[in-house]
């Protein structure tokens, strides 16, 4: 394991007694805001030395015990499904083997709204109701870490993770040493298109500036995927981009605007299947799933590159069942469990050892199931080739000052 920088280990070390606690009774805090100081509190932080921080973390994990209960907040359609829609075989297996009962909540619709939802509780130092949440790497995960809203993981309970996790998700740039996060799944934001309607092959972001596609192009309405894609389009690696690059990317987007039908926050995949749009920014897994249910769409990683993102399991502060959460997070890194999940989710699994297991499942299956599983085991959307990996970039992570400039540049593109 890496040496842990002290600022990453602030998690459990801040002072816990504050005036705010007197006001923590739900609605009363609103009155308190007006009457007391007229302010909305942010996070407090006090830096401890590395040794003290380590000791705090060790103490935290020693004092918490297994409770047999786990509240898991995840995105919709992001887990394997059994015969009934509410039935998740991998969770059943987990409950059978560990005795931990899981309340599975599909509560996360987007990083920004979910962050806004749990932030007040975290600021008031209360339990959010979730022991595991799944957050995409990017500005909101960075904020959760910066604000000390996540529990540092117990590295001793990550044996499966260190045995089976793939290069992509081990020691990632957004969370060095996996101090706070373990990957759930990863995916790419590239271009999805309908080859029949477009009539020619799409290979580059510049194809989304083709006047022949006027009114048939979809883009995303957000300040993460959209700007990062535009940075790729102007030939820059977003992670190391400069402000001058941002301006060029914004110009690229403004030039494209007259051709764009809609900046989507949801529903682009339906519009693409229906033919309202012919080509769109798209998530790899969405295209894969649409094709499984009968569409004939294509997904490309444009030659200029595209963003790869990872959704991460993490434990929000004041979790009531952290040990159970830790147990589950390591459980999904067992290759057999990872294969179950990959077969259900169709994004990039964090366990590359799952690929041979999916192949084996495919051989055991028959008919349609077999075709699907074979497609899954060989699809570059699930297991990208090294060549494709080379073109994938991580999101830009901005500091507060940069984020303001960033938002002011890119928001007018999709909101006007």
């Amino acid at each position, binding site marked *: 394991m890496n040496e842990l920088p002290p600022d990453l280990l602030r998690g459990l070390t801040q002072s816990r007694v504050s005036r705010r606690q007197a006001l923590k009774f739900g609605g009363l805090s609103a*009155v308190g*805001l*007006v009457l007391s100081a007229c*302010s909305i509190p942010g996070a407090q932080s006090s830096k401890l030395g590395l040794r003290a921080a380590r000791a705090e973390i060790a103490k935290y994990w020693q004092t918490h015990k297994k409770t047999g209960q786990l509240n898991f907040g995840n995105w919709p359609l992001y887990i394997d499904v059994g015969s009934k829609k509410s039935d998740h075989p991998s969770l059943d297996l987990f409950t059978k083997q560990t005795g931990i009962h899981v309340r599975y909540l599909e509560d996360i619709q987007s990083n920004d709204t979910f962050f806004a939802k749990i932030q007040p509780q975290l600021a008031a130092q209360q339990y959010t109701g979730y022991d595991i949440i799944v957050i995409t790497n990017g500005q909101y995960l960075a*904020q959760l870490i910066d604000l000390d809203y996540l529990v540092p993981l117990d590295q001793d309970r990550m044996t499966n993770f260190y045995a089976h996790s793939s290069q992509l998700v081990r020691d990632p740039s957004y969370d060095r040493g996996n101090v706070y996060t373990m990957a759930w799944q990863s995916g790419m934001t590239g271009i999805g298109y309908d080859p029949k309607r477009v009539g020619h092959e799409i290979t580059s972001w510049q194809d989304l500036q083709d006047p022949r596609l006027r009114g048939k192009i979809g883009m995303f309405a957000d300040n993460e995927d959209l700007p990062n894609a535009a940075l790729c389009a102007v030939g820059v690696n977003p992670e190391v981009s400069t402000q001058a690059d941002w301006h060029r990317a914004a110009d690229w987007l403004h030039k494209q605007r007259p051709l764009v039908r809609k900046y989507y926050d949801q529903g682009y995949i339906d519009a693409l299947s229906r033919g309202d749009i012919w080509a769109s920014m798209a998530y790899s897994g969405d295209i894969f799933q649409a094709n499984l249910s009968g569409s004939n769409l294509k997904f490309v990683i444009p030659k200029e590159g595209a963003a790869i993102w990872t959704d991460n399991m993490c434990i929000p502060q004041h979790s009531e069942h952290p040990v159970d959460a830790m147990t589950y997070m390591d459980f999904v890194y067992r290759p057999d469990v990872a294969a179950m999940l990959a077969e259900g989710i169709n994004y990039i699994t964090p366990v590359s050892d799952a690929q041979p297991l999916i192949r084996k499942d495919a051989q055991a299956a028959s008919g349609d199931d077999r075709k699907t599983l074979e497609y899954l085991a060989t699809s570059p959307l699930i297991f990208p080739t090294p060549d494709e990996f080379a073109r994938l970039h991580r999101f830009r992570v901005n500091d*507060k000052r940069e984020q303001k400039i960033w938002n002011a540049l890119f928001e007018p593109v999709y909101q006007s």
Partner: protein
Amino acid sequence: MTTLAPEPPAPAPLAVQQAARRPRPAWLGKLTPYWLVLPGWLWLAIFFVIPVVVMLSVSTMTGDIASGFKQTFRFSNYSDAWSAYHVQFVRSLVYGGIATGLCLLLGYPVAFWIAFRGGAHKSSLLFLILLPFFVSFVIRTQSWNFILSDNGMVVSRLRDWGWVGQNFHILQTPAAVIGGLTYNFIPFMILPIYVALERIDLSLLEAAADLYASRTLAFLRIVFPLSIPGVFAGVLLTFVPVSSDYVNASILGGSTGTTMIGNIIQTQYFTNLNYPAAAALSFILMAILLVGVFIYARLLGTDEVLEAATR
């Protein structure tokens, strides 16, 4: 509308009555009506006044989500918000105005027909008007998304018949957004107008006919003036929520020139976590709508509105 308090009941007779039966301190009797309206005031104070004061205070704060927001009485939050988003403000008011006008044009005949020709079926017809409310607002709007899509039942027919060009589309245009707003809010126009029309004494029309007034003249001189309170209430009930709506713009619109101010406020709150800017935008919207309503009330008069609305 909802913020207008009901008139307190006349105190004098009550006090006189009680005093006659058993002597009581006079101040107690005088206070009785106030005690009676106390629950209403408490309700308003807790669920309206306090939140509004809190948001008013937030709107002049500075800071960010990480280090917290502090009260610095930065009133330029308002001018910043206005200069960045005045286009969306104006657009919302224009869309609101057009949609309200359409609601009136379409809703008045419906209300008229139910009130005067509904006969025994009046209540079933009213129920039909309200029936869509049993399905979620968002689902209904989303289903228009299917109906109006480029290869959906409407646009593809028009294209097949050669009435429109290959590139014609309805979704993601201002027309789609205004149409959605009109569709979603038209019951709020129909109901108050119906209430006003339904109260009209039919013998007035007979009298008009006896005096050789044509039906058009009778409508213009008798029916319409008597229905003005209903129209007034309907316009208020429609215009205010329509102007601040964001669901139609996000589902049927496309962010390319159809964004309304509600969408901006939502982004400021939930995406940018910029609470002061969002609060300032909300108050500007509230101020614009309030001023508009006051002017409108001055021009048309409010005396009979409450009567029409509360019946």
